[in-house]
């Protein structure tokens, strides 16, 4: 592939956005070509480089972190999935894998680009071809893989394509004694579950399939890969782990894999059994909303039976995935897949997962989701007591160069000390709005962008990096490649349209953060003392925070404050 010219070659993010003197803030930096870079902490006054205005203004602040660093290449492992940590009970010989599935890119995405192999339920090491897994192949057919390592694998498909936006009962079984393989995909179309259009355009026979094969390879070899849903394992241990924050349920850090074969679409009621179940048993297993309803001999065969509706009424953003089966093999949701979405049994009688969680038992996965880039920290700054409240940034320059493709700014906001205001005016930074508009891809991926804005978009080096990185998780004014709107936006990844010097597609010049620096500059030049707060602070501490000030200002577009 040709290398992108003019692309930004350094970027990063902070672990927090609002700090007080005495607090510590961590910076995570990625260098595209692992080059040395110069760090300087700067106070940002004015971010607009337009020569018809006052021009760019920054002041370098001397801090212990200013200096030269060796760049580290840090990729983002985008794409949401569920992970059940490796457990020997999942290393089965005979097995049945089944679920409901609703693929949204069975073959191609909304730009007609082939998506490639996608994984549904896998304990599969894609580097060594070891384990087993239920996939969707390049032609959109449900496929079972059994692997014994060293490229010894077999693959069996239904030989019929899955259709986009149709619910299916999908599954496969393998009997280690007889070598018999069964694989099936049965459309499950009701009048309300969403797949009506395709079901009217195509006869049932075009997509329904149940096929038998005989395998002489033998059972899958055990692997140290975790059991994944909506992905398979490229590397079992990535060196990145989760714990705390939105993974509060985890008592100890859990190391994540590097994943591949990322799936776009929904999954519901995934089940793993340790023998080849009969068709009637599979019907029972998938129809039962609770494992307790099943007869004893079927229950005993269950290795895992995850209930995605179990804990959504309390918190649909929970990353805890309940296994209702006998072994409690609970899972972890990575990169925030969308929970509380309508399932195969949605009746249209309810409009909220809080009222009928049993009809919202699906999870929607997207291969571009990012909740946290999880990069290694590059340096940490302790905010000096002398640092005035203001808008600051770590200025990164590859080999000290200020060329546009060599320079990035990672902004952060310094509040007044905890003992009270230092000014009569508070300026509340609209971080929530910056997040909502983060990393949009209108300039390169929206066919109506030029009509919408009345001009040809301008691409800067940061836009070119964002395009290459598929938006680093995008923002809520964009869509995933399966056409669904983006519903989460994280500040734990580079937000390249929240930068000084940035020119936004939505306006003739500036928007959000860089436009707000106009106000910062005006206050600075007029000699007003101002305390900088972030709306996240107001959310956490309440209105009392604002009551300390006779004057509270917002920026130019505080839409989600």
């Amino acid at each position, binding site marked *: *592939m*040709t*290398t*992108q*010219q*003019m692309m930004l070659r350094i970027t990063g993010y902070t672990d927090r956005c609002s700090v007080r003197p005495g607090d510590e803030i961590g910076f995570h930096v990625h260098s595209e070509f692992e080059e040395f870079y110069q760090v300087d902490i700067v106070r940002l006054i004015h971010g607009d*480089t*337009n*020569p018809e205005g006052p021009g760019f203004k920054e002041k370098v602040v001397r801090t212990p972190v200013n200096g030269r660093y060796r760049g580290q290449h840090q990729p983002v492992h985008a794409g949401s999935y569920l992970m059940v940590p490796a457990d020997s009970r999942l290393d089965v010989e005979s097995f049945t894998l089944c679920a409901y599935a609703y693929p949204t890119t069975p073959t191609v*995405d909304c*730009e007609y*680009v082939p998506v490639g192999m996608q994984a549904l339920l896998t304990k599969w090491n894609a580097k060594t071809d070891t384990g087993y897994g239920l996939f969707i*192949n*390049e*032609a*959109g*057919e449900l*496929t079972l893989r059994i692997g014994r390592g060293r490229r010894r694998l077999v*693959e*069996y*498909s239904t*030989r019929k*394509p899955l259709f986009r936006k149709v619910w299916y009962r999908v599954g496969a079984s393998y009997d280690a004694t007889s070598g018999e393989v069964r694989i099936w995909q049965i459309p499950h179309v009701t009048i309300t579950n969403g797949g009506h259009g395709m079901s009217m355009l195509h006869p049932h026979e075009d997509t329904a399939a149940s096929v038998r094969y005989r395998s002489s390879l033998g059972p899958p070899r055990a692997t140290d890969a975790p059991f994944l849903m909506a992905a398979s394992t490229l590397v079992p241990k990535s060196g990145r782990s989760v714990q705390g924050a939105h993974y509060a349920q985890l008592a100890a850090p859990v190391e994540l894999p590097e994943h591949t074969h990322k799936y776009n679409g929904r999954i519901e009621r995934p089940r793993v059994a340790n023998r080849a179940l009969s068709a009637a048993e599979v019907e029972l297993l998938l129809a039962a909303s609770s494992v307790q309803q099943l007869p004893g001999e079927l229950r005993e065969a269950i290795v895992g039976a995850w209930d995605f509706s179990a804990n959504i009424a309390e918190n649909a953003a929970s990353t805890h995935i309940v296994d209702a089966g006998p072994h409690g093999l609970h899972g972890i949701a990575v990169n925030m897949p969308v929970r509380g979405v309508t399932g195969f049994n949605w009746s249209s009688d309810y409009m909220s997962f809080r009222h009928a969680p049993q009809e919202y038992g699906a999870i929607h996965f997207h291969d571009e989701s990012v909740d946290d880039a999880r990069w290694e920290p590059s340096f940490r700054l302790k905010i000096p007591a002398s640092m005035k409240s203001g808008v600051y940034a770590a200025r990164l320059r590859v080999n000290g160069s200020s060329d*546009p493709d060599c320079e990035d700014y990672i902004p952060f906001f310094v509040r007044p000390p905890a003992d009270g205001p230092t000014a009569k005016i508070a300026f509340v930074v609209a971080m929530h709005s910056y997040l909502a508009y983060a990393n949009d*891809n209108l*300039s*390169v*991926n*929206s*066919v109506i962008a*030029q*009509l919408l804005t*009345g*001009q*040809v*978009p*301008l*691409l*800067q*080096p940061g836009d*070119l990096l964002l*395009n*290459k*990185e*598929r*938006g680093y998780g995008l923002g809520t004014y964009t869509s995933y*490649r399966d056409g669904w709107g983006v519903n989460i936006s994280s500040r734990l990844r580079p937000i390249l349209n929240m930068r000084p*010097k940035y*020119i936004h597609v939505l306006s*003739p010049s500036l928007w959000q953060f860089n436009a707000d620096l106009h106000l910062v500059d005006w206050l600075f030049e007029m000699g007003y003392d101002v305390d900088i707060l972030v709306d996240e602070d107001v959310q956490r501490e309440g209105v009392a925070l604002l009551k300390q000030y006779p004057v509270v200002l917002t920026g130019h577009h505080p839409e989600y404050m």
Partner: protein
Amino acid sequence: MATRRKTGPDTALARDYGYTTVDDYDIRTYILPALRDPVRRAELIAEHRAHPRGAASQPGSPPPNHSPDLKRLIDRLRVVPQAGKHTIVETIPWQEYAIGILPGRRGGVVKITRERHATREDAEHAIFLHRLRALMDRYGLAY
């Protein structure tokens, strides 16, 4: 295992016949008459050259909006597939702007051509002329 590619039947629906026919009718009815007349065409180009991206209102005079004929023309010129669509790349801020070509797919490479302009307005106007020429070629009109 070999994978099978499904190719759809060649139908009017697959060819987007409804859209292309209406689009052709609209161009012939509402846009080509102005382009066929060399004087009117030169006026539209001059009007675009004066304010490629519109302009701010000035005290005492009405906003310098584009004329209805120019608006219709620009809107149609912007309706082109994303793959191969022109864009502007800032190569030296406020000094040099390159014409770029969009890949039409996420993660693809934006091609940066050797064509450079001194201002964003110049680049916008150059893209307008490229697209205008392509439209006129399509209808066999001499530029």
